[in-house]
C-alpha cells in the first residue's frame, strides 16, 4: 500500500446556483481532507441545502468545479453521485413504506450483512429486516438510512441533520460511529444545528453565509464562538435584552383564570391522565423525549384527534373539538413542526398567511383585498419574513417558511397558540426571532403552549415547563430551575437525587462539551446560567 493519500478528498470551489431571481449559492467552496469529520455550518437560507443537493446529484450547479480524489465530480442523479463516491443520508428517510427493510436494501443494492453490522453498531441490533418500513418509528428509519450508507463505504458520507429526530441514546451511538471515521481513508460531512454535536465529533467546520463560504474553522474548545459569529454576521447583537425579560413576566396574580385547561386527558395508551393549566400571558413549555405522548396531546388540543377520556376547557368552559376548525373557533391555533404539513408550497406568502381567513363557510364570498393586504403586511413585518421569493412559499428558506406558518395566526389576532417544536431544523438567528416573538405575544396576553425538543429553549422562551414521560406529566419545573440537566433528568423520569445512567452522563455532561455549549449560549443569546458549572460536577 504505497498509495499517497491526496491532499484533499473532496474539493469544491466557487460553486454557484440560482433559482430564477433567487441566488441560493453565490460562491461556495468546501475542502474536505481524508479521514476528517467536517462540519458544514450556516443559517437557514445560507445555501447549505443547495450545496448538499449539488453534492448528491439533486441539482446541477451553474458554475464551479468539484473534485473527488482529484477527479472531476459530476452528478446528475443520486446514483451517479454514489458512483462518484458521495453518499448522503437525507433529512427525510429514503425508504419505501410498503416494503420490508430487506426489500428496501435489495432495491438499492445495498450489502445486507454490512448493513446489519452497522445497525448493531448504531444501537438497533434487535431490528428485524422483515419489518415493514411503514411500521417502524422515524428514529429507526433514520438509523437504517445511515447504516445503509455506511455499508456502501463511500469516500464521502454526507449527514444532513442526521440527529434531528433521534432520541438521546441513539444520537450518542451515531456520534460515536461518526467519530470512528476519523483517521480512516474516508470522510464525513456533518450538518447539524446542535453545536454540542459539532464540538463532539468534528475536526473542522466550513461556514456558509448568504450563499458564500465565509470561513473554515478548526473545531477546538471555544471555536464555537467564532463559528456562531461567522454564521450570524451582524444579527447576533440585539437579542440578550429581549430574552432577559423572561424572568420578569413569571409572576402572575393569583386570581387569573386559565385560558386553557386539560383535565385528566387520555388518548389510548399514549397519553394518560394529563392535567395542566395554561394562563394568558405565559409560555408553558412541554418537555418530553420522542414519542412520550406529546404528539397526541397536541393533536387533541388542536382538534385533530379526540381524547378517549378527559376534558379540555377553554376559558373555564368545557370544549369539544371534532375538527381543527372547532379548536380555531375556540381560539386555539396550531403551529405544526412539519412545515410541509402547514404550508401551500406552490402558493404565495400572502395566500398562505391569509388561508385561515377564508376557511369558514361564511367567508367563501368575495375577499376584501385591501384589509387582507393590511393584515398580511403587518404579519410579515412582525415576523420579519424575507419576501424576496414570496410568489411561491416552497422557494423560501426553512426558517422563513416556519415564520409564515406562525404569521398566518398572528395576522388574524391570536389568543392561544400551540407550537409543536417550531424551531426544529432552522437556524439560530431565526430561532432567536421566534423566541422573541413568543415573548412578545405572551406580553400581549397570548397563552402559548410550546413543545420543544431542544431543552435549552425552555429557559430562553418559557415561564415554566411540564415534563411528560410515558404519557404522564411527571414534573412541573419553574423556569429558574429548568436548566438542561434538570430537564433531561425529569424527561427520563429520574428523581433529582438519582444518579444518571452512564451513557446519558457521557452524552450531555462531558466537561468539554458542556463548556462548548455555554460558550455558544454566551455568544448567541446570553447566559444559560449554571450549565458549565453543574455539568462539570458530574
Amino acid at each position, binding site marked *: 500500500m504505497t498509495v499517497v493519500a491526496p491532499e484533499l478528498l473532496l474539493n469544491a470551489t466557487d460553486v454557484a446556483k440560482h433559482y430564477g431571481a433567487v441566488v441560493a449559492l453565490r460562491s461556495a467552496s468546501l475542502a474536505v481532507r481524508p479521514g476528517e469529520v467536517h462540519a458544514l455550518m450556516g443559517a437557514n437560507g445560507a445555501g447549505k441545502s443547495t450545496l448538499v443537493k449539488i453534492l448528491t446529484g439533486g441539482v446541477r450547479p451553474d458554475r464551479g468545479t468539484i473534485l473527488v480524489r482529484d477527479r472531476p465530480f459530476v452528478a446528475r442523479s443520486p446514483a451517479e453521485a454514489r458512483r462518484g463516491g458521495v453518499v448522503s443520508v437525507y433529512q427525510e428517510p429514503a425508504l419505501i413504506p410498503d416494503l420490508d427493510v430487506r426489500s428496501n436494501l435489495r432495491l438499492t443494492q445495498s450489502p445486507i450483512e454490512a448493513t446489519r453490522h452497522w445497525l448493531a453498531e448504531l444501537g438497533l441490533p434487535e431490528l428485524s429486516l422483515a419489518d415493514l418500513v411503514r411500521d417502524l418509528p422515524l428514529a429507526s428509519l433514520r438509523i437504517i438510512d445511515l447504516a445503509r450508507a455506511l455499508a456502501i463505504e463511500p469516500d464521502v458520507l454526507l449527514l444532513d441533520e442526521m440527529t434531528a429526530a433521534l432520541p438521546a441514546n441513539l444520537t450518542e451511538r451515531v456520534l460515536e460511529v461518526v467519530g470512528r471515521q476519523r483517521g480512516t481513508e474516508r470522510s464525513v460531512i456533518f450538518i447539524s444545528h446542535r453545536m454540542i454535536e459539532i464540538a463532539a465529533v468534528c475536526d473542522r467546520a466550513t461556514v456558509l453565509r448568504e450563499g458564500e463560504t465565509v470561513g473554515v474553522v478548526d473545531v477546538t474548545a471555544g471555536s464555537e464562538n467564532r463559528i456562531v459569529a461567522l454564521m450570524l454576521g451582524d444579527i447576533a447583537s440585539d437579542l440578550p435584552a429581549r430574552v432577559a425579560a423572561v424572568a420578569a413576566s413569571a409572576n402572575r396574580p393569583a386570581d387569573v383564570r386559565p385560558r386553557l385547561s386539560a383535565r385528566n386527558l387520555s388518548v389510548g395508551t399514549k397519553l394518560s391522565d394529563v392535567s395542566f393549566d395554561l394562563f394568558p400571558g405565559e409560555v408553558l413549555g412541554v418537555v418530553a423525549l420522542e414519542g412520550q405522548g406529546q404528539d397526541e396531546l397536541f393533536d387533541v388540543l388542536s382538534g385533530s384527534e379526540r381524547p378517549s377520556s378527559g376534558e379540555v376547557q377553554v376559558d373555564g368552559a368545557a370544549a369539544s373539538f371534532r375538527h381543527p376548525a372547532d379548536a380555531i*373557533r375556540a381560539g386555539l391555533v396550531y403551529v405544526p413542526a412539519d412545515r410541509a404539513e*402547514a404550508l401551500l408550497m406552490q402558493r404565495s406568502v400572502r395566500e398562505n398567511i391569509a388561508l385561515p381567513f377564508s*376557511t369558514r*363557510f361564511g*367567508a*367563501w364570498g*368575495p*375577499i376584501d383585498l385591501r384589509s387582507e393586504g393590511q393584515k398580511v403586511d403587518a404579519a410579515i413585518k412582525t415576523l420579519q419574513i424575507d419576501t424576496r421569493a414570496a410568489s411561491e412559499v416552497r422557494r423560501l428558506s426553512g426558517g422563513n417558511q416556519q415564520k409564515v406558518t406562525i404569521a398566518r395566526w398572528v395576522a388574524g389576532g391570536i389568543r392561544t397558540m400551540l407550537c409543536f417544536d417550531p424551531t426544529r431544523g432552522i437556524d439560530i438567528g431565526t430561532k432567536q426571532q421566534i423566541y422573541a416573538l413568543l415573548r412578545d405575544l405572551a406580553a400581549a396576553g397570548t397563552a402559548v403552549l410550546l413543545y420543544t425538543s431542544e431543552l435549552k429553549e425552555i429557559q430562553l422562551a418559557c415561564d415554566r415547563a411540564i415534563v411528560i414521560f410515558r404519557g404522564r406529566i411527571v414534573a412541573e419545573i419553574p423556569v429558574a430551575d429548568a436548566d438542561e440537566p434538570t430537564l433531561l433528568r425529569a424527561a427520563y423520569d429520574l428523581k433529582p437525587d438519582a444518579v444518571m445512567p452512564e451513557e446519558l452522563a457521557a452524552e450531555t455532561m462531558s466537561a468539554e462539551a458542556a463548556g462548548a455549549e455555554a460558550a455558544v449560549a454566551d455568544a448567541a443569546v446570553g447566559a444559560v446560567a449554571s450549565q458549565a458549572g453543574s455539568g462539570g460536577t458530574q
Partner: protein
Amino acid sequence: MTRPAGASTAGTAGVPRSPSATGRNWRQVIRDQPLIPLIALLAVLVVVLEFASPGIVNANWLGTTLRSAIPLAILAACQTLAMLTGGIDLSVGAVASMAAYLIGTLSPSQGPLVAIVIAVAACAIAGLVNGVGIGVFKVHPLIMTLGMSLVVLGLMSVYQLAMVQQGVHIVDALRFVGSGISFGFLPNSLIVFVPIAVIIVVGLRRTGYGRLLFAIGDNPIAARLAGARVWQVHVALYMLSGILAAIAGMLLSGLNNTATVSLVEQQVLPSVAAAVIGGTSIMGGRGGYAGTIVGALILTVVTTLLNVLEMPEAVKQILFGVIIVVVAAAYTRVSGDS
C-alpha cells in the same frame, strides 16, 4: 395565473441584482404569464389555418368557432375547478346529456321553464352525490365520477324506454341561444358564457372559495389544519360542476338541434384536454380558467384545421392525443422543480 398585487410587488422589490439573477428566462415568463404562449400558439394555428385554406378566416368563421368553443369551454370549467383541487369530473358528459334529454322530453308536457328547472336540479343532485362520495366517503374523484357517469347513463336509458314514442322537442330559446349568431360574428351563447367566465376567473382569485380550491389542491392537510372543512368544499364544487354541465348540455342541444342520452359523451375528454392545455395541473393547486378558455379555442381551431386538411378520423385522434401529451410534458418541465 396571476397573483395578488401585494405579494407580487413585494416579490420584485427585493430581487437581488447579481448578474446571474437576470435569469428571467422563457421558463419564468411561461410560469408567470402562461396566457402569452397560449395565445401565441392560438394565433399560429389561425395563421396555419388561413394558409391551409385561404379565405377561411373571416367573420363567419369567427362566429362559428366561438359558438362551438363555448360549450366545450363550459365543460372545461368543470374540469378546471375539479382539477384545481386535485380532482376531475368525468361525469360531465352523462350529466350534460341528461339535462339536454330531460328538457327535450319534458318541455312539451311541462313547458320549457319547468323542464329546465327539473333538468338543472337533477344535474345538481348528481353533483351532490359526487361531492358526498368524494368529500365524505373519500372515494377517488376519478372513480366516483366515472361511476356516476355510468349510473346516469343507465338511468337515462331506462327513462328513454319509457319516453321512446314521445320523441324530443328542442326548446326554441335554447336553439336561439345555442346556435344563433348576431351581427355576423357574435354567437348568442356569449350571453350565457361571458357572465360564467367572468364569475369563474374573478371568483378563483378574489373569493374565499376560490382560494380554498387552490389550497385543497396544493395541500389538503394544511387546508384542514387551517380550519377548512374540506368535504364542504368538495360538495359545493361537484354540485357547481353538475350545474355548469347542465348549462353546457342545454347549449349543445340547441346548437345541434337534438337531444340524446349520449349527446355530450364525445366532449368529455376534450374538456379535460382544454383544461390541461390551458395550464391547469391535474395534480391540483395550479392553474386558472382564462387559460382553459384559450385551451378550448385551441382545440376548436385544431379540429377545424384537421377537417380542412381532410384528415381521416384516426389521424385526428392521434394528433389530439399527441398535442395533449406534449403540452402536459411541456408544463411539467416549466413548472417542475427547476
